[in-house]
């Protein structure tokens, strides 16, 4: 039976994390230093030491998960601790500073830590949510199979379209050329929306027989399987009188529709996989930045003691 890293050893690390939180809050509540709570009291130093050690241990996870021959426990155990103790760090570090913030390198470390924890929390969310969606989306079909299926459908479409005439051929050709997936970055995604709308307008004009020539094709426009193509084929169908051409048209419409469905699934797969990974590209650089800020924080506190 598969055991989620969240439930590792009957939530051992969750209990450990909660214990740490309760202990910290209890000590903080009982502690009444003469000058108010801050990082310089005995509890402040204690919580600070615990917090800094935790950060180093949490960072070590990045090394441990690559050490395939390590005997230091299972990686899923490490991940479980990484998640729960990392969340507990939020409380430990906040109580360490005694809610004293300012425009300085110390608060910079705190803010970076918060960002790392929040991005990590989003990571947990994606790990809980997207693998299921990915599996459901694939429906037992491998992405490779879907892609070669799309290729097959493209070929069949072209054959049918060739029989239907040059205009239909051009239309299908264009649809194939413009089948593209995903977004390379948020910038492309945002740019793609406006570009895509503009292009759709042109396409509609072209279908309407407008003489205006088509401009250069935009790069990587997310187009889910070519709605325009479906419209075009449906439109053609309406005009077909003789049985043979109508049958061809029906066949083309079927092919285009199944391709569209497949493209949507591939596209979703890409988006899910991208979301599953993207939080890491925030979590990791911020973690390393936190390590640098933490080092500066610790050294400077004692530099001007």
């Amino acid at each position, binding site marked *: 039976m598969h055991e989620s890293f969240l439930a590792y050893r009957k939530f051992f690390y969750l209990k450990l994390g909660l214990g740490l939180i309760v202990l910290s809050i209890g000590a903080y509540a009982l502690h009444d230093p003469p000058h108010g709570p801050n990082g310089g009291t005995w509890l402040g130093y204690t919580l600070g030491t615990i917090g800094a050690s935790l950060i180093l241990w949490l960072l070590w996870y990045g090394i441990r998960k690559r050490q395939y021959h390590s005997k230091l426990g299972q990686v899923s155990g490490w991940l479980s601790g990484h998640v729960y103790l990392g969340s507990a760090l939020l409380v430990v570090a906040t109580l360490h500073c005694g809610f004293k913030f300012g425009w300085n390198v110390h608060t910079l470390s705190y803010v970076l830590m918060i960002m790392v924890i929040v991005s990590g929390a989003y990571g947990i969310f994606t790990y809980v949510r997207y693998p299921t969606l990915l599996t459901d989306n694939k429906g037992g079909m491998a992405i490779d199979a879907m892609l070669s299926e799309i290729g097959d459908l493209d070929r069949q479409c072209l054959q049918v379209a060739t029989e239907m005439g040059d205009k239909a051929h051009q239309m299908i050709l264009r649809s194939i050329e413009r089948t593209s997936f995903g977004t390379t970055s948020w910038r492309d995604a945002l740019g793609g929306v406006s570009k895509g709308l503009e292009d759709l307008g042109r396409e509609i004009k072209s279908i309407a027989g407008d003489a205006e020539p088509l401009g250069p094709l935009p790069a990587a426009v997310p187009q889910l399987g070519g709605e325009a193509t479906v419209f075009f084929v449906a439109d053609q169908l309406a005009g077909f009188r003789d049985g043979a051409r109508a049958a061809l048209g029906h066949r083309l419409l079927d092919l285009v529709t199944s391709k569209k469905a497949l493209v949507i699934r591939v596209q979703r797969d890409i988006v899910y996989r991208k979301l599953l990974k993207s939080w890491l590209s925030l979590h990791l650089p911020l973690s390393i930045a936190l390590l640098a800020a933490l080092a500066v924080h610790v050294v400077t506190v004692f530099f001007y*003691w």
Partner: protein
Amino acid sequence: MRCLLRAVVRKSRGVVSHQDRGFEGDHLTIGRSTDQDLYLPDLRVALHHATVVAGPGRFVIQSAVPSGIRHNDEPVQSAFLAVGDQVGIGDHRITVRPPEGGHDLVLEIAQVRADPGQEVEKRVASASGTGPEKGLRLGVRGWSWILSMTILTLFFVVPLVAHQWEAMQGFLRGVIPGVSDHAWSTGGLTEGHRYFSDDCNKCHERAFVSVRASACTECHKDQPHHFDVERFKVPALVDKQCAACHKEHGGAPALTRQDEGLCLDCHRDMKETAADSKLLDIEGGFAEDHPEFRATFVTHVGGKDQSERIEMDRPEVLKERSNLFFPHKTHLDKTGVQGPDGKAVVLGCASCHVPEPGGRLMAPIRFEQHCHRCHQLAFEIDDPEREVPHGHVGRVLDDLKAYYGLRTLERSDIDTGEPDVLSRRRPGRQATPPERSEGLERAARRARQAGKELFEYRACAKCHQVDEKAQSVFGWDIVPVRIARTWYPLARFDHGRHATVACADCHAFRPADCAPSTLQRGVADPEKGAADCIKRVADSEKSEDVLITGIATCRECHGDPGARDRVQSTCISCHGFHLSPKFAMDGRVRTQAGDLAPPRQAAVPSADRTDLPTGQAPRGQ
């Protein structure tokens, strides 16, 4: 244009051969139709797909269909052709080669046996970021390096270099404090220290060494020590660095310890701390554990002024011996008192009691300022403007004698029924010695009579206690007035900060028979209590009444630290520290003359212990 079309033919086992074909014409057509100049047999190529034409100095490829062509993997409608360019149409790849053999354009045509599915797969790979990285995009590793190195450089390396190089230090602190050592500051300084807040090294003299006491005593050297450090051995307050208790960078509350613990350590058991101390033990906070206030009286015993402290809850003995008669009741009569011109004047507290400059204490009452207008010191009914001086007993009789002597000489003496000794004198004749002595005697007699009236009945005795048996030259003396300057000299009460409170809220008195228990906090209803037992100042008939209430009144508004419904008050809200009249913070001893001298012996504890080797001046000097 003259064009060479070179078809690449792949044979088995990877052998490649070329088939060259020349072409001459205005333009080169490309398509799936057999009438095209360049025939590409692929379903994904349109019948007429594109045309190559000669432009000015270069060739242009133009798509004839909406799906366009791929120029160097970019989908376009038209493109200029340069050597090395690749044009993709369907599964064919056309590469522009360097011109050769008199041809303007050499095109190499190869069929890429690409499955349409594979091509899609390629696009999927690039879309999901699993393909090769594009251009200059930074990966996770790159961003990690950039972020961490930026933080290290800006907030550590640059300030650290500046720490070794003063010119740079000054520049950074002044112009870009964010990357100077100011970025290390955990918080702002207290008001008094802000004027040097730019210079961290004023206090932080050496790296990795906590702030020395010497940094503090550089300015605070004359500050009285916490207490008599010879008598009380409290290492925590003598041997430790100032910064152990006085924390900076945390705002005003952090700079001085506000907690009661510091005081209670010694004041919880005063017998233990100092067996001969008259201070009372205090168990805890102000709201519950502070003992009842004690009023301080100045008494005169054996020729010396002494102070005596009496608990406010002992009204039977709480009596001030001021040697002055002043009934507040008479003066605060609602209908007024008789003024100098005979009209009624209504007096209030502020008629006499005004704050000192600064507003903390009330200014002392002065006869000339507050009493004289009504209480004039005239002694002759027919000469009411003439008064004796106040406050100078010795001069009063002299003044009277001189006055009456002059009047006798001027024969303007009032009618006393006695024969006029000098009136018989003939003009131009000097008075005879018997006449003169009789005149003087008469003047002295008149002066003594007026003095007796003044001292014993009219003026002096009205307010002052007159000592009739005094050994002064004329038999009277005024017993010195001893009014407490403040009832609670060991507390720092500020009238100015209580300006919104009515005088009568704190100033009242308890007659000798008033039971003290009603004044305990939580029991007393201020309204009821006043009606029951406590009396208003305006009801005080005797000057011995102590017109101030005790701790219960303060507790109406002041509570312990942490109290939600009271002003949070700790020991140092009212009481001072650093009060030693003898020792200064740097260990010097105050001499009789008031100067500070070096300690008599090396054993005198001093907070001024620095680890700085001699001769090494701290930074920032």
